[in-house]
């Protein structure tokens, strides 16, 4: 500290000098900071043009030429019976997402949050209803050629996009062309399922495929959200992502990055009386504890992806309803017979059966998930085509020991296993419990819990140990993608297993258009996969959500997919 002895005049001068210097520094600081920040952070659509001609009244959907694909019910029961009709959309529905969407252009959406937000803006040609049936949407009907390779879609007339452009066959062709181009799409293979998409006339489109593609319609529902050709050609994908336009029940209003996305009801929606909510807002709240607080403070109407404990804590809160349902996601410990597993005891089917008998799934679910969770019967999830013909492995350590003895491993063996850290809810603990269970029947497991990025890197290179844990979700209503992805041998990035019988059955499934026959094939596959298990089957997790009392007709599907078209919220 310097000594401050000086005459009063000099002192005043010094003080003024310091004040001047400090102000200068502050100004510089402010300039440095403010120079970096732009003024506006939101993107807004140009004003929507109202089409000149009124939209013709919607007729009841004409019966599809093809009988609806009979997929077992996939919807969670709606939260409540619909209330009495009100005229016009009302109220603001506020939905909390666990993360910010990456894009609102369907072919660029990498995750569920993006999908949930984006899907409300568009219509596909065909719709998958809550019961898992394919229904008409922008296509009123369609014909399928006898050999199953030509689909002729008859398009709905009088539909307009949010910007006023009329919907025609050109838009369907453009949607496909943008979707199959890897430069403008993250999911080109979901569009390449069709070989050609041709315009026959303004309201007729012909789609041809290389051989029968039973998953074509479901894929079209999931990915082929129709976009306006003229607008997309004009603004490009980057421009489209700033201000997306579809024919869907909601129109884009703004996206304030990091904070919220707002839609408003499409006043010209082709389904009269829909949507029910006037405004739809998505808030991004990454922390689940904060989502719990936000529903309690009535700052949002719907929160998803809570933990079992958080859901319990909301059970007695007035004004809040909770719901939980099993997800179409299978957890499993995979075996490897392609690289690291070669020569290991797990090459023997009896050993793999024994390991399935040794693991106490119900005990794990009870200890780690308050009992919420459903023991897997195989790799086909609840509600998917062909589910339910096999029983899960019972927890039977004695039988496990017996099978190990028969396989010649009476004294057990030692094997390596890996699990990802922080990737799935409590999965590290699940893996540790499995290691304990396997230890009880004499199998010593060296568990390596790895950072998840590195983990998936090694999984894609097929360099994980002979045992590794993972989970696989699917939104399509059928288990095919999951089965092929995890069992497709060297042709699938995340598969570490190859079995000629499984390959053959999967090939048949991918070519069989008849739903009943496809169901039988799934059942045959599941029986085979019980005798020759490629996994230790674990569980289907539950997901926990909560809504405000004022929300009605909210019905998420087991895939977490949800449309807000019918959801109502009390008007302010």
């Amino acid at each position, binding site marked *: 500290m310097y000594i401050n002895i000086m005459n009063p005049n000099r002192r005043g001068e010094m003080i003024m000098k310091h004040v001047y210097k400090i102000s200068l*520094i502050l100004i510089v600081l402010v300039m440095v900071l403010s120079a970096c*920040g732009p003024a506006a952070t939101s993107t807004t659509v140009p004003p929507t043009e109202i089409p000149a001609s009124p939209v013709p009244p919607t007729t009841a959907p004409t019966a599809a030429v093809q009988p609806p694909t009979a997929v077992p019910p996939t919807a969670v029961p709606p939260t409540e019976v619909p209330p009495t009709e009100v005229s016009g959309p009302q109220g603001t529905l506020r939905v909390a997402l666990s993360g910010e969407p990456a894009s609102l252009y369907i072919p660029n959406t990498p995750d569920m949050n993006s999908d949930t937000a984006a899907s409300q803006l568009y219509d596909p040609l065909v719709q998958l209803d809550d019961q898992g049936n394919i229904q008409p949407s922008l296509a009123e009907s369609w014909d399928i050629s006898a050999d199953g390779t030509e689909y002729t879609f008859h398009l709905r007339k009088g539909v307009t996009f949010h910007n006023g452009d009329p919907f025609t066959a050109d838009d369907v062709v453009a949607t496909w062309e943008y979707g199959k181009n890897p430069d403008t799409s993250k999911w080109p293979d979901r569009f390449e399922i069709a070989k050609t998409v041709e315009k026959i006339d303004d309201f007729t489109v012909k789609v041809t495929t290389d051989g029968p593609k039973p998953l074509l319609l479901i894929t079209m529902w999931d990915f082929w959200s129709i976009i306006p050709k003229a607008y997309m050609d004009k603004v490009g994908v980057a421009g489209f992502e700033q201000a997306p336009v579809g024919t869907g029940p909601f129109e884009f209003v703004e996206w304030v990055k990091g904070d919220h996305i707002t839609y408003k009801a499409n006043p010209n929606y082709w389904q009269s009386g829909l949507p029910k909510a006037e405004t739809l807002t998505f808030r991004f709240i990454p922390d689940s504890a904060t989502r719990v607080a936000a529903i309690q403070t009535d700052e949002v109407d719907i929160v998803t992806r809570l933990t079992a404990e958080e859901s319990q804590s909301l059970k007695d809160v007035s004004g809040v309803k909770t719901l939980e349902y099993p997800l179409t996601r299978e957890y499993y410990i995979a075996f490897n017979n392609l690289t690291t597993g070669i020569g290991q005891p797990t090459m023997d089917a009896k050993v793999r059966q024994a390991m399935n008998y040794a693991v106490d799934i119900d005990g794990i679910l009870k200890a780690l998930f308050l009992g919420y969770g459903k023991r897997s019967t195989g790799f086909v999830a609840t509600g998917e085509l062909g589910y339910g013909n096999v029983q899960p492995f019972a927890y039977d350590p004695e039988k496990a020991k017996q099978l190990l003895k028969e396989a010649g491993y009476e004294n057990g063996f030692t094997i390596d296993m890996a699990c990802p850290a922080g990737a799935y809810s409590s999965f590290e603990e699940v893996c540790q419990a499995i290691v304990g269970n396997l230890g009880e029947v004499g199998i010593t497991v060296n568990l390596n819990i790895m950072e998840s*990025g590195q983990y998936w890197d090694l999984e894609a290179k097929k360099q994980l140990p002979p045992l590794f844990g993972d989970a696989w979700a699917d939104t399509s209503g059928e288990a095919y993608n999951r089965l092929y992805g995890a069992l497709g041998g060297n042709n699938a990035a995340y598969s570490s297993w190859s079995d000629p019988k499984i390959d053959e059955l999967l090939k048949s499934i991918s070519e069989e258009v008849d739903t009943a026959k496809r169901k039988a094939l799934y059942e045959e596959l599941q029986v085979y996969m019980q005798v020759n298990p490629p996994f230790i089957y674990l569980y289907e997790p539950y997901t926990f959500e909560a809504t405000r009392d004022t929300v009605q007709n909210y019905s998420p599907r087991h895939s977490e997919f949800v449309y807000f078209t019918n959801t109502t919220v009390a008007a302010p």
Partner: protein
Amino acid sequence: MLRYFLNKLALSILLLLGVLALVFLMLRVTGDPAALMMPREASPQEIEAFREKMGFNRPLGVQFVDFMSKAVVGNFGNSLHYNTPALPLVVQRLPATVELAAVGLLMALFIGVPLGLVGGFNPGSLIDSFGRLLGLLGQCIPNFWLALILILIFAVRYGWFPAFGRDEPKSVILPAFVLGLAVMSQILRMTRSTVLEVRSEDYIRTARSKGLNSRTIYFKHVLRNVSIPLVSLIGVQFCYMLSGSVYIETIFAWPGMGRLLQESIGWRDFPLVQALAVFTSVVVITLNLATDLAYALLDPRIRYGK
């Protein structure tokens, strides 16, 4: 003075180059992003094609030179998640982060300095004990825990503040308080100990013996000397607050850079993480440079020191 400034500037530039190199290397040691960015059902061929498109298959050295030459002009490529240039995404988030840090710092100053002064002038008093307790708690309480507790009390229970977001002016209060608390206790403790130290200096005794009244002594002699260490502390702490709000922004769903960092790490969005790390470093280094200058202007011993 100019030489001092140039010296500091050169050091800052060197530091920034070091940061760039570190950012590049740290992200590369955890594995290949191509596999993770692609959908799970993607075939190995599709993953390879993506790797090639992004240039992840080139030798590390080539990727490094490419990265550095583009990074120095602010080009970090497109964010993999958002598919738009990374740097503007980061810059967009700056105002929210600055707002949070600035309000947090102001709260820290308005609580910390007065409590520290009163405590320093009246050691052992009730207010001093309260201040010391607050200072201790502020440093010990984990901020993510405090954040949740404050949300439960002031948003859920009493409804005085929103639980999340940046919708209205009062949204900033809770997150800024949590962010500022640790800084507040540092300011409080430092102000208190500096006052205690200065109080017993010879020049204060001299001032007293000249018959100056207490107010003049406190405001003209003690406060000015307290301000010197405060300036450097504030500079450092403001940097800490700008870069250290990852948890708090995530919990309060605050649309700032910290939350973007947390999310982009989850997405393994290399360009975005790099842009964030480098941009935050530039801000911090610039602020440090400014603090050094401010310190030199205030204290001639620094300016002329060898």
